[in-house]
């Protein structure tokens, strides 16, 4: 009897539609977020993550309605990220039916926001989303830095130290996306994932780069992730959630 590892399909949304790009450009339309969430839930997804990918650049007032619509039909945990800047944004999302909020840019701009949010709402609903990119040259020790605004802006922050700092401020979970791998289907950045997962006591969700079912297994067994997040392989019908769970189970991973 033990805690299962989680599969989390991720819905990157832009103006109420699910989209998916390669390295955050070349965005393809993948459908209606409510319909897709419901399908994944019925298939046995362990959680849903809803990311408003342009939230830092544009007004996002429609998100609440989409979250409410998803939460009315989908009875598994829902994390909402994108444009979470104030305590009131968090309150609004929780009341709309989100269970956790993902904080990314706002954490970088104002780390105290994470502390305030965790004190007010509890660490368990505060996910700090980290977009990391490898900045070391070949042959040098690996070094990853944090990027914001969907990977557009470098911050100069070193990823491992940043993850530790965010946990000490109250983050209850880390959503770790490799900017180098995102949308490439070449697998998670396992070194990055292992480095962060070993450095923090809270769960880490591996994200960015899933192309095969073995990538999911590697994320957990080599990258020591507690959950794996994927978008493209599910959105475009390459694999179903039951196929992924079955494959992971066959490789000795405890699944629901």
């Amino acid at each position, binding site marked *: *009897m*033990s*805690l*299962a*590892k*989680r599969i989390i399909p991720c819905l990157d949304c832009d103006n109420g539609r699910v989209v998916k790009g390669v390295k955050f450009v070349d965005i393809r339309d993948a459908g209606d977020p409510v319909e897709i969430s419901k399908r994944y*839930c019925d298939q046995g997804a*362990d959680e849903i993550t809803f990311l408003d990918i342009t939230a830092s650049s544009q007004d996002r007032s429609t998100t609440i309605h989409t979250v*409410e619509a998803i*939460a*009315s*039909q989908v*009875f*598994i*945990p829902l994390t909402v990220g994108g444009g979470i800047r104030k305590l009131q944004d968090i309150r609004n999302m*929780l*009341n*709309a*039916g*989100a*269970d*956790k909020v993902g904080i990314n840019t706002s954490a970088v701009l104002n780390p105290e926001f994470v502390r305030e949010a*965790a*004190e*007010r*709402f*509890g*660490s*368990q*609903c505060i996910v700090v989303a980290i977009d990391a990119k490898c900045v070391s040259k070949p042959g040098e020790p690996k070094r990853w830095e944090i990027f914001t605004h969907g990977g557009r802006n470098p911050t100069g922050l070193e990823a491992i130290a940043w993850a530790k700092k965010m946990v000490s401020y109250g983050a*209850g*979970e880390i959503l770790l996306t490799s900017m180098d791998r995102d949308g490439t289907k070449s697998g998670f950045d396992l070194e990055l994932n292992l480095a962060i997962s070993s450095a923090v*006591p*809270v*769960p*880490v969700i591996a994200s960015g780069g899933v192309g095969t079912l073995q990538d999911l297994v590697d994320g957990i067994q080599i990258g*020591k992730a*507690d*959950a794996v997040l994927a978008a493209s392989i599910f959105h475009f019908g390459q694999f179903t959630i039951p196929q992924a769970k079955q494959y992971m189970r066959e490789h000795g991973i405890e699944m*629901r």
Partner: protein
Amino acid sequence: MTHVAVIDYGMGNLHSVAKALEFVGKRAGKSLKVSVTSDPLVLQEADRLVFPGVGAMRDCMAEIRHLCIDEILREQVRKKPVLAICVGMQALMQSSEENGGVDCIGLFAGKVLRFADDLVDAQGAALKVPHMGWNQVRQTQAHPMWQGIGDNGRFYFVHSYYVAPHSTIEVAGETDYPQPFCSALAHKNIFAVQFHPEKSQENGLQLLQNFLSWNGQAS
């Protein structure tokens, strides 16, 4: 018609609980009204109460006291079934270690403790805190609230604190992380769970459906 009031003290994930109740009510063909409220009159009027909770205990208890929810609960729990969820369950204990120590409502004897920082599983791998995800619930007593739910069924948990009741008689379910902790408590009209039934897909929906027809008795 069944009237369920979800107690709103400004801290819960209320939309989810209310929507899940409406969903199962409809599915079971029940005539159901769900109110999300802190109004004492509505709470008195309702046939059954749901006491949810998300957040830090100090702030939760401050709101609970401010709105006199503690007084209302003490009175109402004698009259109607109450389902407490997550921090709602924790708030029913005498005190919590969270936020440097917080006095709670005290309907159950016992404390709320934090998971240790150095937990490891049977293979020696580090266990993360919060305890987050789908874990199994061992039904330690037969109870109408477990009807139609398999023993060791999985439910969704997300918490860093857990309840340690003084009396094991009141424990209705246990979960291992890695040591067994109390994941469900039952006493008279109260059924309290650490997991989130509203987020636990079929098992959770079944529990909520059971609550809608539960008469508040242990059998």
